[in-house]
Protein backbone atom coordinates (compact mmCIF):
# COMPACT_ATOMS: atom_id res chain seq x y z
CA UNK A 1 0.00 0.00 0.00
CA UNK A 2 1.46 3.33 -1.06
CA UNK A 3 0.14 6.85 -1.47
CA UNK A 4 0.86 9.10 -4.41
CA UNK A 5 0.39 12.83 -4.54
CA UNK A 6 -1.02 12.93 -8.03
CA UNK A 7 -0.52 16.65 -8.47
CA UNK A 8 3.20 16.47 -7.61
CA UNK A 9 3.66 12.91 -8.90
CA UNK A 10 5.57 12.11 -5.70
CA UNK A 11 5.16 9.17 -3.37
CA UNK A 12 3.89 10.36 -0.01
CA UNK A 13 5.93 9.45 3.05
CA UNK A 14 4.65 7.96 6.28
CA UNK A 15 4.26 10.58 8.97
CA UNK A 16 2.42 9.18 11.97
CA UNK A 17 0.23 6.32 13.13
CA UNK A 18 -2.58 6.54 15.66
CA UNK A 19 -4.68 3.81 17.25
CA UNK A 20 -7.64 5.57 18.84
CA UNK A 21 -8.68 2.43 20.71
CA UNK A 22 -11.92 1.69 18.87
CA UNK A 23 -10.37 -0.91 16.61
CA UNK A 24 -9.64 1.58 13.87
CA UNK A 25 -6.29 2.92 12.71
CA UNK A 26 -5.20 6.25 11.31
CA UNK A 27 -1.98 6.66 9.38
CA UNK A 28 -0.89 10.03 8.04
CA UNK A 29 1.21 10.46 4.91
CA UNK A 30 2.82 13.66 3.66
CA UNK A 31 3.82 14.72 0.18
CA UNK A 32 7.54 15.54 0.34
CA UNK A 33 7.13 18.21 -2.31
CA UNK A 34 3.98 20.19 -1.53
CA UNK A 35 3.59 19.13 2.11
CA UNK A 36 -0.01 18.03 1.74
CA UNK A 37 -1.00 15.48 4.37
CA UNK A 38 -3.61 12.80 3.88
CA UNK A 39 -4.81 10.27 6.44
CA UNK A 40 -5.59 6.67 5.71
CA UNK A 41 -8.37 5.50 8.01
CA UNK A 42 -8.99 1.78 8.29
CA UNK A 43 -12.09 0.20 9.75
CA UNK A 44 -11.76 -2.47 12.47
CA UNK A 45 -11.86 -5.28 9.94
CA UNK A 46 -9.04 -3.80 7.87
CA UNK A 47 -7.03 -2.97 10.98
CA UNK A 48 -7.34 -6.53 12.18
CA UNK A 49 -6.26 -7.89 8.81
CA UNK A 50 -3.03 -5.87 8.97
CA UNK A 51 -2.44 -6.93 12.57
CA UNK A 52 -3.02 -10.57 11.65
CA UNK A 53 -0.22 -10.40 9.13
CA UNK A 54 2.18 -9.47 11.90
CA UNK A 55 3.30 -6.28 10.15
CA UNK A 56 3.15 -2.66 11.20
CA UNK A 57 2.19 0.27 9.00
CA UNK A 58 4.94 2.82 9.38
CA UNK A 59 7.53 0.14 9.98
CA UNK A 60 8.79 -1.70 13.01
CA UNK A 61 10.70 0.03 15.77
CA UNK A 62 11.62 -3.02 17.81
CA UNK A 63 12.02 -6.68 16.80
CA UNK A 64 8.88 -8.75 17.18
CA UNK A 65 8.62 -10.72 20.40
CA UNK A 66 8.19 -14.50 20.08
CA UNK A 67 4.56 -15.35 19.38
CA UNK A 68 3.74 -11.65 19.41
CA UNK A 69 0.83 -11.91 17.01
CA UNK A 70 -0.68 -14.81 18.94
CA UNK A 71 -0.20 -13.18 22.33
CA UNK A 72 -1.51 -9.84 21.14
CA UNK A 73 -4.50 -11.10 19.20
CA UNK A 74 -5.84 -14.29 20.79
CA UNK A 75 -8.79 -13.43 22.99
CA UNK A 76 -9.11 -16.81 24.69
CA UNK A 77 -5.54 -17.40 25.84
CA UNK A 78 -4.90 -19.02 29.20
CA UNK A 79 -3.41 -16.78 31.84
CA UNK A 80 -0.74 -19.29 32.84
CA UNK A 81 0.31 -20.42 29.35
CA UNK A 82 3.82 -19.06 29.83
CA UNK A 83 6.22 -19.21 32.71
CA UNK A 84 8.46 -16.23 33.26
CA UNK A 85 11.55 -18.37 32.58
CA UNK A 86 14.61 -16.28 31.81
CA UNK A 87 12.54 -13.14 31.71
CA UNK A 88 13.02 -12.79 35.45
CA UNK A 89 16.69 -12.19 34.81
CA UNK A 90 15.97 -9.35 32.46
CA UNK A 91 14.52 -7.26 35.22
CA UNK A 92 17.61 -7.42 37.46
CA UNK A 93 18.70 -3.85 38.17
CA UNK A 94 15.27 -2.53 37.32
CA UNK A 95 12.56 -1.59 39.72
CA UNK A 96 8.89 -1.06 39.11
CA UNK A 97 6.99 1.64 40.93
CA UNK A 98 3.85 0.55 42.76
CA UNK A 99 1.67 2.29 40.20
CA UNK A 100 3.53 0.62 37.35
CA UNK A 101 3.17 -2.79 39.02
CA UNK A 102 -0.54 -2.25 39.46
CA UNK A 103 -0.87 -1.23 35.84
CA UNK A 104 1.11 -4.26 34.70
CA UNK A 105 -1.08 -6.50 36.86
CA UNK A 106 -4.11 -5.34 34.89
CA UNK A 107 -2.59 -6.69 31.66
CA UNK A 108 -4.08 -10.13 30.91
CA UNK A 109 -1.79 -12.93 32.03
CA UNK A 110 -1.59 -14.36 28.52
CA UNK A 111 0.27 -11.32 27.28
CA UNK A 112 1.74 -9.91 30.52
CA UNK A 113 5.16 -11.55 30.24
CA UNK A 114 5.69 -10.18 26.77
CA UNK A 115 4.56 -6.69 27.73
CA UNK A 116 6.76 -6.76 30.83
CA UNK A 117 9.78 -7.68 28.74
CA UNK A 118 9.12 -4.92 26.23
CA UNK A 119 8.97 -2.29 28.96
CA UNK A 120 12.04 -3.74 30.68
CA UNK A 121 14.06 -3.75 27.46
CA UNK A 122 12.95 -0.21 26.73
CA UNK A 123 14.05 1.00 30.16
CA UNK A 124 17.38 -0.82 30.11
CA UNK A 125 18.26 0.48 26.66
CA UNK A 126 17.73 4.02 27.93
CA UNK A 127 19.43 3.61 31.29
CA UNK A 128 16.17 4.00 33.17
CA UNK A 129 16.33 2.42 36.64
CA UNK A 130 12.69 2.58 37.62
CA UNK A 131 9.69 1.87 35.45
CA UNK A 132 6.81 4.19 36.18
CA UNK A 133 3.51 4.76 34.38
CA UNK A 134 5.16 7.72 32.63
CA UNK A 135 7.90 5.42 31.31
CA UNK A 136 5.26 2.96 30.17
CA UNK A 137 3.38 5.72 28.35
CA UNK A 138 6.56 6.90 26.69
CA UNK A 139 7.38 3.36 25.58
CA UNK A 140 3.90 2.83 24.19
CA UNK A 141 4.13 5.98 22.12
CA UNK A 142 7.73 5.63 21.06
CA UNK A 143 7.59 1.95 20.18
CA UNK A 144 4.17 2.04 18.60
CA UNK A 145 2.60 -0.21 21.22
CA UNK A 146 -0.67 1.66 21.37
CA UNK A 147 -2.61 -1.60 21.08
CA UNK A 148 -0.93 -3.24 24.13
Amino acid at each position, binding site marked *: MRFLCVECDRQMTFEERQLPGDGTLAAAFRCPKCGRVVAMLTNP*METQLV*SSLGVKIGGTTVPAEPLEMIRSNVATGRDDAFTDGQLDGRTVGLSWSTDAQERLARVPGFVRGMVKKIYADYAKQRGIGEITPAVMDAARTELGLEGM
Partner: protein
Amino acid sequence: MPLHIRTYHELTEPDRSRLGDQIAAQRRRLAERLAAVGRVLVVMSGKGGVGKSFVTAHLARALARDGRAVGVLDADLNGPTVARLLDATDARLVPQDDGILPATGADGVRLVSMAQLLADGQPLAFKGPAAESFVWRGAAEAGALRELLADIAWGTLDVLLLDLPPGMQRFLELCDLLPAAPEVLTVTIPTPESRDAVRRAMRAAVERGSPLAGIVENMVGGEFRGTAGDDLALEFATPVVARIPWHPTPDTWHLLATRL
Protein backbone atom coordinates in the same frame (compact mmCIF):
# COMPACT_ATOMS: atom_id res chain seq x y z
CA MET B 1 -8.77 13.82 -19.64
CA PRO B 2 -7.85 11.05 -17.17
CA LEU B 3 -5.29 11.77 -14.49
CA HIS B 4 -1.83 10.35 -14.98
CA ILE B 5 -1.32 8.08 -11.99
CA ARG B 6 1.78 5.95 -11.72
CA THR B 7 1.14 2.31 -10.83
CA TYR B 8 2.22 0.71 -7.57
CA HIS B 9 5.25 -0.91 -9.16
CA GLU B 10 6.31 2.32 -10.79
CA LEU B 11 6.78 3.94 -7.39
CA THR B 12 10.42 3.42 -6.51
CA GLU B 13 10.87 5.86 -3.66
CA PRO B 14 11.72 4.39 -0.23
CA ASP B 15 8.67 3.28 1.74
CA ARG B 16 9.06 3.59 5.50
CA SER B 17 6.48 0.91 6.21
CA ARG B 18 8.39 -1.58 4.05
CA LEU B 19 5.61 -4.10 4.46
CA GLY B 20 7.21 -6.34 1.87
CA ASP B 21 10.46 -6.30 3.80
CA GLN B 22 8.61 -7.10 7.03
CA ILE B 23 7.03 -10.15 5.39
CA ALA B 24 10.41 -11.18 3.94
CA ALA B 25 11.97 -10.89 7.41
CA GLN B 26 9.28 -13.19 8.79
CA ARG B 27 10.09 -15.75 6.12
CA ARG B 28 13.81 -15.51 6.81
CA ARG B 29 13.24 -16.03 10.52
CA LEU B 30 11.21 -19.14 9.80
CA ALA B 31 13.77 -20.51 7.37
CA GLU B 32 16.58 -19.91 9.86
CA ARG B 33 14.65 -21.68 12.60
CA LEU B 34 13.99 -24.72 10.44
CA ALA B 35 17.57 -24.87 9.20
CA ALA B 36 18.32 -27.02 12.26
CA VAL B 37 15.52 -29.43 11.41
CA GLY B 38 16.59 -32.40 9.35
CA ARG B 39 13.20 -33.29 7.98
CA VAL B 40 9.78 -31.64 8.01
CA LEU B 41 7.04 -34.22 7.60
CA VAL B 42 3.42 -33.16 7.28
CA VAL B 43 0.76 -35.64 8.42
CA MET B 44 -2.39 -34.87 6.49
CA SER B 45 -5.57 -36.22 5.04
CA GLY B 46 -8.45 -34.81 3.10
CA LYS B 47 -10.77 -36.61 5.50
CA GLY B 48 -11.60 -35.84 9.10
CA GLY B 49 -11.67 -38.45 11.82
CA VAL B 50 -9.19 -40.86 10.24
CA GLY B 51 -6.69 -40.60 13.08
CA LYS B 52 -4.08 -38.12 11.89
CA SER B 53 -3.27 -36.86 15.35
CA PHE B 54 -3.21 -40.37 16.79
CA VAL B 55 -0.81 -41.50 14.07
CA THR B 56 1.31 -38.35 14.48
CA ALA B 57 1.68 -38.75 18.23
CA HIS B 58 2.52 -42.44 18.15
CA LEU B 59 4.86 -42.09 15.19
CA ALA B 60 6.66 -39.30 17.05
CA ARG B 61 7.01 -41.46 20.14
CA ALA B 62 8.30 -44.39 18.11
CA LEU B 63 10.87 -42.20 16.37
CA ALA B 64 11.96 -40.80 19.73
CA ARG B 65 12.30 -44.28 21.23
CA ASP B 66 14.51 -45.13 18.27
CA GLY B 67 16.82 -42.32 19.33
CA ARG B 68 15.70 -39.51 17.04
CA ALA B 69 15.20 -35.93 18.17
CA VAL B 70 11.55 -35.36 17.34
CA GLY B 71 9.27 -32.35 17.47
CA VAL B 72 5.55 -32.13 16.85
CA LEU B 73 3.71 -28.98 15.89
CA ASP B 74 -0.02 -29.32 16.33
CA ALA B 75 -1.21 -27.34 13.31
CA ASP B 76 -4.84 -28.11 14.08
CA LEU B 77 -5.32 -24.73 15.70
CA ASN B 78 -9.06 -25.11 16.21
CA GLY B 79 -9.14 -28.71 17.40
CA PRO B 80 -5.77 -29.34 19.02
CA THR B 81 -5.31 -32.82 20.49
CA VAL B 82 -1.61 -33.59 20.25
CA ALA B 83 -0.76 -32.22 23.69
CA ARG B 84 -3.16 -34.67 25.31
CA LEU B 85 -1.95 -37.56 23.14
CA LEU B 86 1.62 -36.80 24.22
CA ASP B 87 0.73 -36.37 27.90
CA ALA B 88 1.69 -32.69 27.94
CA THR B 89 -1.62 -30.94 28.49
CA ASP B 90 -0.39 -29.09 31.55
CA ALA B 91 3.08 -28.28 30.23
CA ARG B 92 3.83 -24.56 30.17
CA LEU B 93 5.85 -22.75 27.55
CA VAL B 94 9.03 -21.01 28.63
CA PRO B 95 10.14 -17.79 26.93
CA GLN B 96 13.87 -17.62 26.21
CA ASP B 97 16.09 -15.16 24.44
CA ASP B 98 15.82 -16.88 21.09
CA GLY B 99 12.22 -17.99 21.23
CA ILE B 100 9.79 -20.05 23.26
CA LEU B 101 10.93 -23.44 24.54
CA PRO B 102 8.60 -26.22 23.41
CA ALA B 103 7.05 -28.52 25.97
CA THR B 104 8.42 -32.01 26.39
CA GLY B 105 5.94 -34.84 26.13
CA ALA B 106 5.96 -38.63 26.29
CA ASP B 107 9.24 -40.29 25.27
CA GLY B 108 10.92 -36.88 25.11
CA VAL B 109 8.98 -35.60 22.12
CA ARG B 110 9.10 -31.79 21.93
CA LEU B 111 5.78 -30.23 21.10
CA VAL B 112 3.73 -27.12 20.86
CA SER B 113 -0.01 -27.02 20.54
CA MET B 114 -2.67 -24.38 20.69
CA ALA B 115 -4.11 -26.48 23.52
CA GLN B 116 -1.25 -25.18 25.68
CA LEU B 117 -2.13 -21.60 24.83
CA LEU B 118 -5.91 -21.60 25.11
CA ALA B 119 -7.95 -21.38 28.28
CA ASP B 120 -9.61 -24.67 29.17
CA GLY B 121 -12.62 -25.40 27.01
CA GLN B 122 -12.33 -22.17 25.06
CA PRO B 123 -12.27 -22.02 21.26
CA LEU B 124 -9.52 -20.20 19.42
CA ALA B 125 -10.95 -16.69 19.24
CA PHE B 126 -9.13 -13.60 18.06
CA LYS B 127 -9.68 -10.04 19.12
CA GLY B 128 -11.30 -8.04 16.39
CA PRO B 129 -14.66 -7.30 14.86
CA ALA B 130 -17.04 -10.25 14.86
CA ALA B 131 -18.83 -9.16 11.72
CA GLU B 132 -17.29 -10.52 8.53
CA SER B 133 -14.43 -12.03 10.46
CA PHE B 134 -13.83 -14.36 7.53
CA VAL B 135 -11.95 -11.46 5.93
CA TRP B 136 -9.12 -11.57 8.44
CA ARG B 137 -9.46 -14.86 10.35
CA GLY B 138 -7.59 -16.86 7.71
CA ALA B 139 -4.71 -14.40 7.86
CA ALA B 140 -4.70 -14.62 11.66
CA GLU B 141 -4.55 -18.42 11.61
CA ALA B 142 -1.78 -18.38 9.00
CA GLY B 143 0.06 -15.85 11.14
CA ALA B 144 -0.31 -18.07 14.19
CA LEU B 145 1.01 -21.04 12.24
CA ARG B 146 3.99 -18.98 11.09
CA GLU B 147 4.81 -17.97 14.64
CA LEU B 148 4.51 -21.53 15.95
CA LEU B 149 7.03 -22.59 13.33
CA ALA B 150 9.41 -19.66 13.59
CA ASP B 151 9.25 -18.61 17.23
CA ILE B 152 9.48 -21.99 18.94
CA ALA B 153 13.06 -22.80 19.87
CA TRP B 154 12.89 -26.31 18.50
CA GLY B 155 16.63 -26.80 18.68
CA THR B 156 18.22 -29.41 16.48
CA LEU B 157 15.67 -31.96 15.35
CA ASP B 158 15.92 -35.02 13.18
CA VAL B 159 12.22 -34.79 12.36
CA LEU B 160 9.52 -32.19 12.86
CA LEU B 161 6.05 -33.65 12.41
CA LEU B 162 3.21 -31.30 11.60
CA ASP B 163 -0.24 -32.56 12.45
CA LEU B 164 -2.70 -30.87 10.11
CA PRO B 165 -6.46 -30.47 10.44
CA PRO B 166 -8.71 -32.08 7.83
CA GLY B 167 -8.88 -30.41 4.46
CA MET B 168 -6.31 -28.51 2.45
CA GLN B 169 -6.30 -24.98 3.81
CA ARG B 170 -3.53 -25.44 6.38
CA PHE B 171 -1.40 -27.36 3.90
CA LEU B 172 -1.64 -24.53 1.38
CA GLU B 173 -0.69 -22.02 4.09
CA LEU B 174 2.33 -24.15 4.91
CA CYS B 175 3.40 -24.22 1.30
CA ASP B 176 3.33 -20.42 1.29
CA LEU B 177 5.33 -20.20 4.50
CA LEU B 178 7.98 -22.88 4.09
CA PRO B 179 11.00 -22.49 1.84
CA ALA B 180 9.93 -25.62 -0.08
CA ALA B 181 6.78 -27.70 -0.33
CA PRO B 182 6.89 -30.11 2.64
CA GLU B 183 7.04 -33.88 2.49
CA VAL B 184 3.63 -35.43 3.10
CA LEU B 185 2.56 -38.55 4.97
CA THR B 186 -1.07 -39.32 4.17
CA VAL B 187 -3.52 -40.98 6.54
CA THR B 188 -6.69 -42.72 5.37
CA ILE B 189 -9.10 -45.34 6.58
CA PRO B 190 -10.01 -48.21 4.23
CA THR B 191 -13.36 -46.89 3.00
CA PRO B 192 -14.05 -45.58 -0.51
CA GLU B 193 -15.42 -42.37 1.01
CA SER B 194 -12.12 -41.73 2.70
CA ARG B 195 -10.22 -42.67 -0.45
CA ASP B 196 -12.10 -40.10 -2.51
CA ALA B 197 -11.50 -37.30 -0.03
CA VAL B 198 -7.87 -38.21 0.51
CA ARG B 199 -7.28 -38.45 -3.23
CA ARG B 200 -8.12 -34.75 -3.62
CA ALA B 201 -5.71 -33.82 -0.86
CA MET B 202 -2.92 -35.94 -2.34
CA ARG B 203 -3.54 -34.45 -5.75
CA ALA B 204 -3.20 -30.95 -4.30
CA ALA B 205 -0.01 -31.98 -2.51
CA VAL B 206 1.51 -33.36 -5.69
CA GLU B 207 0.50 -30.28 -7.63
CA ARG B 208 2.28 -28.09 -5.07
CA GLY B 209 5.41 -30.20 -5.47
CA SER B 210 5.32 -32.08 -2.17
CA PRO B 211 7.17 -35.40 -2.08
CA LEU B 212 4.94 -38.22 -0.86
CA ALA B 213 6.37 -40.22 2.05
CA GLY B 214 3.68 -42.90 1.86
CA ILE B 215 0.22 -43.80 3.05
CA VAL B 216 -0.88 -44.94 6.48
CA GLU B 217 -4.09 -46.94 6.38
CA ASN B 218 -5.62 -46.61 9.81
CA MET B 219 -8.43 -48.50 11.60
CA VAL B 220 -7.84 -51.64 9.56
CA GLY B 221 -9.57 -54.90 10.37
CA GLY B 222 -12.76 -53.53 11.87
CA GLU B 223 -16.01 -52.23 10.54
CA PHE B 224 -14.44 -49.98 7.94
CA ARG B 225 -14.21 -51.97 4.73
CA GLY B 226 -12.43 -51.05 1.53
CA THR B 227 -9.12 -50.81 -0.26
CA ALA B 228 -8.37 -47.09 0.04
CA GLY B 229 -4.74 -47.62 0.97
CA ASP B 230 -3.93 -49.86 -1.97
CA ASP B 231 -5.98 -47.79 -4.40
CA LEU B 232 -4.18 -44.58 -3.47
CA ALA B 233 -0.80 -46.29 -3.42
CA LEU B 234 -1.32 -47.51 -6.96
CA GLU B 235 -2.65 -44.21 -8.20
CA PHE B 236 0.11 -42.08 -6.68
CA ALA B 237 2.95 -44.58 -6.92
CA THR B 238 3.73 -44.31 -3.23
CA PRO B 239 3.82 -47.19 -0.72
CA VAL B 240 1.42 -48.09 2.04
CA VAL B 241 3.93 -47.72 4.86
CA ALA B 242 1.64 -49.02 7.58
CA ARG B 243 -1.71 -50.65 8.16
CA ILE B 244 -2.71 -49.75 11.67
CA PRO B 245 -5.13 -52.16 13.40
CA TRP B 246 -7.73 -51.05 15.91
CA HIS B 247 -5.46 -52.02 18.77
CA PRO B 248 -1.93 -51.22 17.65
CA THR B 249 1.08 -52.26 19.73
CA PRO B 250 4.39 -50.40 20.13
CA ASP B 251 5.75 -52.74 17.45
CA THR B 252 3.20 -51.37 14.99
CA TRP B 253 4.57 -47.87 15.44
CA HIS B 254 8.17 -49.01 15.50
CA LEU B 255 7.66 -50.67 12.14
CA LEU B 256 6.15 -47.48 10.73
CA ALA B 257 9.05 -45.44 12.10
CA THR B 258 11.59 -47.70 10.43
CA ARG B 259 9.86 -47.30 7.07
CA LEU B 260 10.03 -43.53 7.04
